[in-house]
């Protein structure tokens, strides 16, 4: 996990590659527990269910999905913490 502070909050990279459902969402939830309002969490994963699951998680927890990108080697979801 890497932390770097940018304007508007910290950006944390959470590497859930190789972890199957519900691993990525759980790693996201654990990072969310430590996050503050305005922070950005970048979740890396390889589970095929991750894109819809991240959207469902964000809708449920009332946070914002900034982007979800499927790259050749991984899926990258960027979530902004609005509700903390």
């Amino acid at each position: 996990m890497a932390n770097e502070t940018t304007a508007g909050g910290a950006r944390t990279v959470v590497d859930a590659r190789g972890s199957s459902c519900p691993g990525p969402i759980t790693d996201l939830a654990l990072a969310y527990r430590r996050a503050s309002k305005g922070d950005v969490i970048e979740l890396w994963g390889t589970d095929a269910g991750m894109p819809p699951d991240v959207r469902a998680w964000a809708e449920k927890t009332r946070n914002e999905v900034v982007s979800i990108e499927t790259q050749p080697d991984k899926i990258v979801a960027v979530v902004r913490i609005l509700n903390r």
Partner: protein
Amino acid sequence: MADKLSIVMYSGTADKFIPLGVLSQAAAAMGTQVEIFVTGFALRGFTEQKQELPFPAEFAALAPALGHGMQQAKVASWDKMLRQAKDLGAKIHACSMMSEVMGLQLGDFNDLVDDMVGAATFLKEAEGGQVLFI
């Protein structure tokens, strides 16, 4: 968050513990309050003294392939998933009546089990939320 998922875990076969683990962990990660009521043969999965959980006869031939596939996909074991769910706030209750029927006391269960309750407690706890019977 006010929403709740209550699961009645009744089945005692190994395959049924996978969705129990997955749904409990996922729901807890979503911020949902998770209450698991363990009863019937499922109580055997929670004893301090580990007991081998059988596979349903019709799927027994597929069990080795399933185990292998789960290892390949790095799926966590069901008890690890429940532990993670508990770290996120899930609670596990053992059914008092079925425990008695099976000769089990609270001390016979492992630390996944929080307490022993009756059906009324569970029903009251489950009120107004989603309920699953596994």
